[in-house]
């Protein structure tokens, strides 16, 4: 513990913290507060996110179609239809995810 180098007073510490924060903000440019305390989104993380988004939507579409088929007795047709709807939903999700990222931080989210 750095008990020995305790500041003389809390006001002094407060001043130093404010100064350090200002310096830090200046150094990191005008990235704003949004990037603060946020772990970097790695390329792999982004890829995983988009991949699961697509696959999950198709799976949900197929499951919903299959369930409706069982219920209504229209064996393959609703499943086929919902496969395409699910794919569309997946693309919509991917579009929203990436659009959100582009808006979040100007760095392009790589």
């Amino acid at each position, binding site marked *: 513990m750095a008990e020995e180098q305790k500041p003389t007073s809390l006001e002094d510490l407060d001043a130093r913290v404010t100064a350090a924060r200002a310096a830090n903000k200046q150094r990191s440019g005008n990235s704003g507060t949004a990037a603060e305390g946020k772990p970097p989104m790695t390329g792999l993380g982004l890829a995983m*996110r988009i991949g699961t988004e697509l696959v999950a939507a198709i799976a949900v*579409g197929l499951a*919903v179609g299959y369930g409706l088929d069982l219920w209504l007795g229209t064996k393959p047709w609703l499943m086929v239809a919902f496969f395409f*709807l*699910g794919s*569309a*939903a997946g693309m919509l*999700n991917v579009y929203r995810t990436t659009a959100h990222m582009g808006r979040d931080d100007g760095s392009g989210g790589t």
Partner: protein
Amino acid sequence: MGDGVAGPLEQFEIKPLVKIQLGSLDISYTNSALWMTIAVAVVTLFLVMGTRQRALVPGRWQSMAEMSYEFVANMLSEQVGSAGKAFFPFVFTLFMFILVGNLLGMVPYSFTFTSHIIVTFGLAFVVFLGVTILGFVKHGFHFLSFFVPKGVPAVMLLLMVPIEILSYLTRPISLSIRLFANMMAGHTMLKVFAGFVIGLGVIGGWAPLALNVVLTGFEILVAFLQAYVFAVLTCIYINDAVHMSH
């Protein structure tokens, strides 16, 4: 696999520790449940010990507890705005539980309960259900207009509304698959390379060992990242339900 070397998937095996049978239901206390209990205990201990001193100038533990608090609080206010404060306890609990669960999985001989899809799906479904109920409570049946995109001709709505509903239903699936797949893939990979170390022996085993060291570091990053992603998506969903905007 050679003799004595555990298969890469053996680590995910659920072992009942205390057998409990309730009618036809098997509600045994398993190793998964044990590690969940440990995770809750660790989080509680971490926060209680961290906030015990209540120093104006925080020590290390208090600093870490405050950092986790601020991290989640910032995330909420960023994504949801001032209306998000009410959901802080929920998101914070979720974040800490997943984070500690992921990190406990990095302890040798431990069990990673977040690598089971039923666990992550349970968590994701609680989020999904809660957010849906929240939307209906906040907006009544007006919440259904969430599924009707604006500025779309009436003919296209026939196609767009099912797509929007499917997209909404996808949320718990993609949320749970993302966490589970990341944890399971990472831990399987670690075990596979650990198996190579034994298989290649003293001469060739150093290369996979070095890779395993790198992968371990990477897995710790993934543990943080996935807990963050889960929490931030929860925030986004809460924001959708509160403000009804995509």
